[in-house]
């Protein structure tokens, strides 16, 4: 389908405005638009009447200028060029498409609206690292505060904002950490395609995240947020102006996720190589598709919950205000209908990535591919039925506690299937000890603790003690960070050679792995302990009996930070000057290892034809 362009002398003459648009024009146009809208709104919006229940003018001004930023940014990055052309009855020319694909662009293509999935994958990797950095700094502030006896030196307003912002940044970072970099870079090559189904949407999904992050940061300087990452109303209605930053962050990020979800799903369903039946599709692909397919129905609900919250604040509606006919329970339901599937959006790709790596590092086939698929499907399906286990104690519907207890405990069955697949692959394998290999063991350890503590929490009478305590915080860090982040880091080490052409420094990645895993367990075991002793969540000061547990957790956190900084350093220095990687350093059998480094623009010379699955390791019985 791709025709070779006629050679033209000199540079491309037919590339129009997109030649001039990049991240700098985007930031500039976004900032200018935000300022203009702000001044106009400030000057012309009417004052609030004296007797309104909610003063909304300042929220209107803030939201409008944030929307102004968003429109300006997306225009400045070039997202509107192609749609505009289409409305005029034309389309981008071939030369413009090749320009957008980043042909012959060098490093500059990472700063533009580039459509090549490999460029988008690297861009996602960078933004993920930036988000983790920001979230990690906030985590260290939290732990520095809580690590001092009885806490309390960060004053409550700043602390609540730090806690909430840490939470939402980390949630977004963990959502994109596997499907972003690896779902974009590796997945199309792994299925034998030249790019994704909608390359321009791919670029869009990335730049939407950059556009989204700014309002959140901006919000920190206009009062911050006073809620946790869950942004419960009615407290969110009472929060300072920074809450609008959260609302915009989520709304724009939800758009990004929906776009990415449509793109990834279509690509996998329609563009697998000839002969790659569903039985021969690698398990990682299933994980990525399940994750975005879950996000597709869930994130619109999140988007809606925030739109209603924004309307309550800026327009004085009463969706969540009990005094005027609304209900805080409405918010909780909308939020958790997204919130529970979302944790599986985070977890499934990480576990699927490790399931993809397990056969490579045990040199034997994946144990029961079918069970792995069933497990992923079962978790995805059941996850939309369990949300009210976050609301056992809310008093919303006590009669529904038991049914939700049932559905929540049922999820342990498909989750167990994934354990079985990993354990079965370890059995009688030949262990090749690398960071990805040890990450499998770390996942089993962390996810077992996370899963079992989840069983306690799913039990209503036990939850009457545990809900709202630090036990819950420790539980979800064990599942999302202990299992999720471990899988993502393993994926980074595994696919780093293909994505950058260099091997990641071995010694440093080992040091980082052990520091992060040991520090993580020390930190969060300490947190389970203070939760059991009775420390509530999201408190900036606490009774003296929690001193010891909090100190242990803060020490563990410092160790995690050290490990992550070392990993950051390893990534940067190996990328710049590491050992060149061979085409297939792990001697793995999936399609991405059949293309050379650096990966050519269109991935394959000729599209491959697949005749068997990728798990053909181990000595065949003769």
């Amino acid at each position: 389908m791709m025709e070779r362009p006629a050679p033209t002398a000199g540079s491309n003459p037919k590339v129009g405005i997109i030649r001039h648009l990049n991240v700098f024009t985007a930031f500039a146009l976004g900032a200018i638009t935000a300022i203009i809208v702000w001044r106009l709104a400030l000057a012309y919006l009417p004052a609030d009447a004296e007797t309104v229940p909610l003063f909304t003018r300042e929220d209107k001004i803030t939201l409008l200028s944030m929307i102004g930023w968003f429109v300006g940014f997306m225009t400045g990055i070039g997202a509107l060029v192609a749609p505009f052309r289409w409305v005029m009855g034309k389309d981008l020319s071939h030369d413009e498409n090749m320009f957008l694909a980043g042909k012959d662009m060098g490093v500059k293509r990472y700063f533009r609206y580039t459509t090549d999935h490999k460029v988008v994958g690297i861009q996602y990797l960078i933004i993920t690292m930036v988000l983790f950095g920001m979230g990690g700094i906030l985590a260290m502030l939290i732990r520095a505060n809580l690590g001092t006896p009885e806490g309390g030196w960060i004053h409550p307003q700043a602390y609540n904002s730090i806690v909430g912002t840490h939470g939402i940044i980390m949630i977004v970072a963990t959502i994109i950490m596997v499907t972003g970099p690896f779902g974009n870079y590796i997945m199309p090559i792994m299925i034998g395609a030249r790019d994704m189904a909608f390359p321009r949407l791919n670029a869009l999904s990335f730049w939407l995240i950059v556009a989204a992050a700014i309002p959140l940061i901006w919000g920190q300087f206009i009062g911050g947020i006073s809620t946790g990452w869950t942004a419960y109303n009615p407290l969110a209605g009472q929060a300072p102006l920074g809450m609008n930053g959260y609302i915009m962050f989520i709304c724009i990020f939800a758009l990004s996720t929906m776009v990415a979800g449509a793109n990834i799903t279509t690509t996998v369903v329609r563009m697998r190589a000839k002969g790659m039946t569903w039985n021969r599709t690698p398990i990682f692909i299933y994980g990525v598709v399940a994750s975005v397919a879950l996000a597709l129905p869930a994130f619109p609900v999140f988007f809606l919950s925030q739109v209603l919250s924004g309307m309550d604040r800026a327009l004085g509606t009463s969706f969540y205000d009990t005094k005027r006919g609304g209900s805080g329970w409405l918010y909780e339901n909308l939020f958790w209908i997204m919130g529970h599937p979302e944790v599986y959006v985070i977890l499934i790709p990480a576990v699927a990535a490790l399931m993809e790596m397990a056969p490579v590092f045990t040199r034997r086939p994946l144990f029961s591919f079918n069970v792995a698929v069933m497990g992923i499907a079962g978790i995805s399906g059941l996850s939309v039925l369990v949300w009210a286990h976050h609301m056992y104690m809310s008093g919303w519907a006590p009669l529904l506690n038991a049914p939700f207890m049932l559905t929540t405990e049922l999820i342990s069955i498909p989750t167990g299937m994934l354990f079985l697949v990993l354990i079965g692959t370890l059995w009688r394998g030949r262990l090749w000890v690398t960071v990805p290999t040890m990450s499998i063991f770390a996942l089993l350890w962390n996810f077992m603790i996370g899963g079992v503590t989840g069983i306690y929490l799913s039990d209503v009478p036990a939850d009457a003690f545990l809900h709202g305590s630090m036990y819950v915080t420790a539980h979800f860090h064990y599942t999302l960070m202990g299992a999720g982040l471990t899988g993502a880091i393993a994926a980074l080490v595994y696919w780093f050679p293909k994505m950058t052409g260099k091997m990641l420094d071995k010694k440093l990645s080992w040091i980082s792995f052990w520091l992060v895993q040991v520090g993580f367990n020390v930190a969060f075991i300490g947190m389970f302990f203070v939760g059991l002793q009775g420390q509530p969540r999201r408190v900036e000061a606490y009774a003296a009996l929690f001193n010891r547990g909090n100190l242990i957790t803060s020490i563990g956190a410092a160790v995690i930070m050290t490990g992550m900084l070392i990993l950051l350093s390893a990534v940067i220095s190996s990328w710049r000057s590491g050992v060149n990687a061979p085409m297939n350093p792990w001697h793995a059998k999936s399609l991405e290892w059949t293309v050379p480094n650096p990966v050519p623009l269109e991935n394959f010379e000729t599209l491959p034809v697949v005749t068997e699955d990728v798990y053909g390791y181990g000595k065949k019985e003769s």
Partner: protein
Amino acid sequence: MNKRLFAALATVVLGFSLIAGIATYVAAAKNDPGVLVAQSADTYTSPDGTVYPQVKLSLNVYPNSLFGGHHGAGGGAHPDYVSYASGGPNGEVLSDAKAGTNFQVPAHTAVTITVYQYDSGESITNDYFAHVRGTVGASATFVQRWDTKAKSNASSEQQITNIPADMVGHTFTIHGISDKKSQLFVSVPLMMANDEEVTAAEEEGGYTQFPTKTTFTFITGDEGEYVWNCEFPCGDGTIARFGAAMSTMGYMSGHLIVKG
């Protein structure tokens, strides 16, 4: 290899320095850095005969931060927010108070606080807080009109256990973390000053000449850190009126440190 190890170490050091820097910035960003230490006074004998050492504190409550308080010239970031602040010994308005909402008192001591309340008020949302609680005798000494110019009572002094629920200006409510330390809960309603006088004074660029004056004594227990806040929400235009000034440290909330 060594160069990479060195780079890794440098990254760690740089990372922690960045965090330390941000932490310093966050710690400094308070609305009220000062701590008002209560002054010693004569010993106090409680109704049951026990003798305690005594300290005294004097506070003012202003309807805004423009002309009094610790938020700097022009009222700081939120000139329209109600401000609790340290005032003169007879309730004089101090426009450059060094402290406002953080207080330090010794342990096992009788603490006598006098609050001069310059703001108007209305019906309180939860009439639980219209009663005097946690003080010695569950009562307070109250003067409805204190003359700041003459420095004397302009109406009679009475002992009160509560005030009418529709004439509450603010409250002073101390509470804290539940742990091995003593539970300290003190809540005193502060009646409103005359509405017309308050508005008239504000138009002239100052505060009323006749605030209300409430004096109460409570006994502290062990050392510890408690907080206090006003329990009569007045953050108009926010949910339950508990947003804006009510939810910003240094205006109607602060720390009470029991130490020494």
